[in-house]
């Protein structure tokens, strides 16, 4: 890990008065897939939102590509090469699929047809539905629109908040393989995932958060093999997935 793309340095903060994150530190290297796992209410989504200026950060720093992101507005963060896909309400329902993608490229003034082609290449079903209102699509297809929108600016880092929450197993597999494909294009990915086993399977590295603090970190395989982690999330035949409502923590 000589080079660091994103560095959370001891971040403390929350939405209102109370702190949800306590001294959380994380690193993402260029081209890496990093997964955040942890029980409900552990601050996983919150940690991700702190990068995006959606949080009152009261302590620590967020460094991206050598620049300090702490306290920037979301549109300023996007401009610097980070895109974010929220867990829910992540498409503009009354806009067509095509218009959703155009909104992803709002900051670009140049020709966006290459970026559109790339997104339609990654998500072939979207091409047929490009004139359809995004609100009429199925959950899995919406997730594709949301990820496509986030890719329109050619980000260096993509933040995904529980991209498989509420999806059927078929779509889950599809989303995981698309995450791999996006990563293969050279985009680093920081992802929160309830579906810990599958997520750790594709992760280069992972962090385990508990009660808003760092508990473990290591490569995906190390965590899969760690008995404590296994007990916490992967254990005893019980599915690791929660109820998918972890966004509000």
């Amino acid at each position, binding site marked *: 890990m000589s080079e660091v793309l994103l560095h959370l340095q001891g971040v403390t903060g929350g939405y209102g008065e109370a702190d949800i994150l306590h001294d959380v530190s994380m690193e993402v290297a260029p081209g890496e897939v990093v997964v955040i796992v942890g029980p409900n209410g552990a601050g996983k989504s919150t940690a991700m939102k702190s990068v995006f200026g959606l949080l009152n950060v009261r302590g620590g720093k967020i460094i991206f590509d050598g620049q300090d992101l702490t306290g920037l507005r979301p549109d300023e963060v996007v401009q610097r090469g980070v895109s974010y896909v929220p867990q829910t309400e992540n498409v*503009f329902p009354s806009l067509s699929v095509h218009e959703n993608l155009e909104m992803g490229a709002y900051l670009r003034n140049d020709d966006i047809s290459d970026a559109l082609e790339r997104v339609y290449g990654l998500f072939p079903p979207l091409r047929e539905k490009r004139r359809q209102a995004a609100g009429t699509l199925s959950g899995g297809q919406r997730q594709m629109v949301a990820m496509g929108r986030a890719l329109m600016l050619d980000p260096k880092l993509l933040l995904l908040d529980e991209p498989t929450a509420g999806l059927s197993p078929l779509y889950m597999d599809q989303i995981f393989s698309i995450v791999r494909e996006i990563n293969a294009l050279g985009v680093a990915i920081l992802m929160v995932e309830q579906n810990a086993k599958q997520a750790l399977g594709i992760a280069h590295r992972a962090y385990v958060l508990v009660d808003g603090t760092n508990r473990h970190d290591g490569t995906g395989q190390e965590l899969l093999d760690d008995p404590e982690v296994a007990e916490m999330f992967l254990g005893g035949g019980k599915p690791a997935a929660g109820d998918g409502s972890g966004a509000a923590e």
Partner: protein
Amino acid sequence: MLEFVNFYFIPGLVLGCIYALGAIGVTLTFGILRFANFAHGEVMMVGAFLTWTFMDFMTGAGLALHPLVAAIPAVVIAIGVSVFVDRYFYRPFRKSSPIIVVIASFGMMLVLRSLVQVIWGPNQITFVKGIAKPNGAIREATSDMGMMILVPDKHLLIMVGTIVIMLAFNYILTSTRMGKAMRAVSDNPDLARTSGINVESVIRNIWVIGGFCAVAAGVFLAMDTQFIESTMGFRILLPIFAAAILGGIGRPFGAVAGGLIIGLAEELVAYPWIGDAPLISPGYKSGIAFMIMVVMLIVRPSGLFRGKVF
């Protein structure tokens, strides 16, 4: 039949056009800023007064300006006022509860109306002097049944003007980057922000479009009634809110449909549907919009076009 078209349907459409233009601004600000803008009627009124002032000034200089020409500088000033008011009176409350901004807009309504009363006085002013041509201004068209449908020039102008503004508005919303961003912000402001859309600049443009349509509505209303007064905006605020709710909050095309329906309903209920007397006395006209609004809020608060419910 002919009487119905000439004296009920056409005036209903004209009134509907005026409501529709007013409702566009209300539904845009309601959808994006989440508050019912009580000062919207006053922007219409200010626009009509400014238009009259330019006409009056140019008449003094020996030049008779058409209201629609005099409305051009009025639009520019009214938009400036709208953007200024938003920047200094509403923006500080962006993160407050919507009711705070509603009250701020109520205050702004009183401020604007009082200002107009200080400058122009509280009395009615005749809008179009000396061009009242009751018969000369009637356009004659013959329908295939050999009967006459009479549309006064001013009504024709109002309807054509509204259609032109609607087409332009439709083009902006569906085919320009800013228009699509407006719809995106209306759908989901947080997601718009995280997509890199500058929401504040979108909001400024909302005031520009809303202000433009409001002045058009005010001038059209003045052309129709041929007078202006400081309470004219407030009087049509209720049917405009009703139109915005009927169409669905945040749905500009819904607001247009809602405006036309309310305008037509207000005129058509006075038609002698049963017997010779008006079905409902024209005196109760303004109650119709209120009734539609109440029924809509109870039965289908999201409106005809599935707007937002707050």
